[in-house]
């Protein structure tokens, strides 16, 4: 029965992919060209890494609104380290470490001190944005970028895949092992569903929540590293475009597959990127796509929320009998 359900859900996902493809390809045949598909996969890599990190926070039933700000700080840290002549690996590690540190602060504030997650992460996100102005008074940084090899993170290929997509796949595999096959994965889900019972089963709930926030912030910084590599400059507003698509991807995936998971998030990211890429191709202004992403997000939350989906089923009694 569970397997049947999975097939049904995969079918729904495939149908959505096909529907979006057909809709956009009808408007512009370039949508299915190789060049556009590569661009789509690059876009998906940036959005997907941020969404993967957020998945851990959503699995433990918390919220993180700070990761766009933290990502901006990561981008500026990376840019500054390259600009002062640090080797690439130091600069990348520095950016990720900055994200990790902010993630720890979020996690400790929420899990150990018991502060409310939404307000706390709004504040830490603001703090990160404030810090990101320190390096260059807010101007963008691009010194030494060409020499440093940073741009190769965007341009080079590995076993036939574009580097950003390969990084996404690699990260997703590790995340998948951690969340779905390791002993910690069960702890993340148990913590999210019922923190008290998880604690009574000996699950280190506090540690896992801190870890989830740390992963979220670190992966957001990794995501922004790819964005900086593709745009060739570090910017204090770099992270702004991560927030809504990441939430939409996680919730859309969870709505499609019944719960947040690595696979669900990747599926959600693919759908979101396909839509955003299509809008770009059709030259639809970005503010319309923002509105559409937001609509997708709120629809996905409504489907994922068991009470709302139950209420929707009550509206169509025939469907309930079919189920």
């Amino acid at each position, binding site marked *: 029965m*569970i397997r049947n359900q999975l097939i049904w859900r995969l079918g729904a996902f495939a149908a959505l992919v096909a529907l979006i493809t057909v809709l956009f390809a009808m408007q512009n045949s370039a949508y299915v060209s190789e060049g556009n598909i590569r661009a789509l996969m690059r876009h998906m890599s940036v959005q997907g890494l941020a969404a993967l990190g957020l998945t851990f926070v959503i699995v433990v039933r918390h919220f993180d609104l700070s990761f766009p700000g933290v990502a901006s700080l990561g981008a500026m840290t990376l840019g500054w380290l390259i600009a002062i002549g640090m080797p690439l690996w130091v600069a990348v590690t520095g950016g990720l470490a900055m994200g990790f540190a902010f993630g720890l602060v979020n996690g400790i504030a929420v899990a150990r001190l018991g502060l409310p997650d939404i307000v706390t992460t709004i504040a830490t996100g603001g703090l990160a944005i404030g810090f990101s102005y320190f390096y260059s008074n807010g101007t963008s940084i691009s010194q030494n970028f060409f020499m440093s090899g940073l741009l190769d993170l965007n341009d080079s290929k590995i076993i036939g895949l574009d580097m950003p997509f390969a990084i996404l796949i690699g990260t997703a595999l590790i995340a998948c092992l951690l969340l779905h096959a390791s002993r910690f994965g069960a702890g993340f*889900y148990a913590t999210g569903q019922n923190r008290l019972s998880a604690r*009574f089963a000996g699950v280190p709930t506090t540690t896992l929540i801190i870890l989830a926030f740390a992963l979220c912030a670190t992966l957001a910084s990794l995501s922004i590293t790819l964005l900086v590599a593709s745009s060739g400059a570090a910017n204090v507003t770099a992270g702004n475009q991560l927030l809504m698509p990441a939430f939409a991807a996680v919730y859309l995936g969870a709505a499609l597959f019944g719960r947040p998971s690595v696979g669900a998030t990747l599926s959600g990211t693919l759908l979101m990127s396909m839509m955003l890429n299509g809008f770009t191709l059709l030259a639809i202004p970005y503010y319309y796509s923002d509105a559409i992403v937001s609509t997708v997000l709120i629809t996905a939350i409504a489907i994922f929320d068991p009470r709302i989906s139950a209420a929707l089923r009550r509206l169509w009694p025939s469907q309930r009998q079919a189920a």
Partner: protein
Amino acid sequence: MAEGTGTGTRAGAEAGEILSMSGIEKRFGDVKALENVGFDLRHGEIHALLGVNGAGKSTLIKILSGVYAKDGGVIEIGGESYDLGSPRAAIEAGVAVVQQHPELVGDLSGAENIFLGSEAPRPGLFARVNRRDIAARAAQLLSRFPIEIDLSRKVADMPAVEREIVAILHALRLENTRILILDEPTSTLTEREKASLFAMMAMLKARGIAIIYITHRLEEVYEIADRFTVFRGGRNVACHTVAEARARDISIPNLMLDSKTGLTFPPRSDRADGEIVLETRGLGVEGLFQDVSFQARKGEILGIFGLVGSGVDELSKALFGAIRPDRGQIVLKGRETRFTSPAQALKAGVFLVPGDRRTEGLTLDENVVFNTVLANLSRASAGGLLRFGANRRAATELAQKVDLYPLKPDRNLRGFSGGNQQKVVIARGLYREADVYIFVEPTVGVDIGARSRIYALMREISKDKAVIVISSDCDEVHGVADRTLALYRGRPIGAPMRGEDRDRLLHAGIMGSETGGKAA
């Protein structure tokens, strides 16, 4: 008290009927939840509705309260036919329900909760809420009953019985309430609180309100009900007056169960000299419990009886590291220990089957395998990765051992009855391989069939482990334990006794008196 209605003639009874349901059908997909069910209720009677979990009693109640729409059958209230398609229709027909865990607003006062939804005389955004008027109306409503509670208090600060009374008054705020449904109201009440609830029910009955009373505690049927109806497998299998049941010696457990076995306790242990595994010396937490000393030995079950609020629940949590004791010692396997978290207690070999399995015990949206291995993830994994096949096999084996029904290791816990959920918590404990097993309220909300099995499991575990049973059900503690101790208002009454007399245990736990000894 029941004689009057019990000997009433059939014709007279029919004349006094307020509710008559007949031929009620309800199905969920392929499952028939109710099959051609009839049920009737008389003016001013207390009618107990009995049955194991899944027998169909809550489905019937949900149809009567308009939560579910029936698939077939007739409902007559006061001689008129009703469809009851929505909760509002049920309220208008005079049916009021008090849920098992009443949904009250903790931050509002008792009076405000009673009139929640009908604060203002007229609807509308600008209709004024008159607090003084509400307080006066609440006091007037309360004055009809021989109960004294302070309705100006916040509901969150009230004890369980007062919340229950507020919920009942909320149900009675409408003048037309004729049928009151109480769903397991005593499950969180102490004996004394139960008495005041029963007094209120008697008053309602005298005022002609018919009460449908759902309970798992059969002794209460004899205490308060006039008639009882037993459900089994979606059918109404018996309806008797209590007087008739007494006179003819009808066994309610036998009616509830398919097999002719009632609640049975396993035989007691004949070993009294197993090694001491867990010992407490003068254990106490300020304001919760004091001076608790006992020894739990391998090969026996130690029972601790105490009502809700007596400190027994907190005691179990102190033994498990969830509350830190501030006085006394815990000695585990000869070494003094001090747990700072449940994880530490588990590592040291203490396993707690918590009292509230839904909030403290289980991850309801995960399956049996997940819930079984959760407390021992290092055993469930190799090199940090879960051993899926081995875990499934181990969980299935344990599920068989605890008689999980249905034996579906991939089903989510939400899909099991209370008793079977409890069996999964026990399977988790077995998977953990602890030295001391602490069971808190092990059979709350568990039907009789599963109860006997759980007691038998406890006895089996006790063969080579120490088992402690902590419960507010005196018969349970007395029936299953080899030695017993009572806690009253945080203090132990007497020392743990072997083969303690049931009535003495009951007195110790309820009145705090130790016969022949000094009162606490």
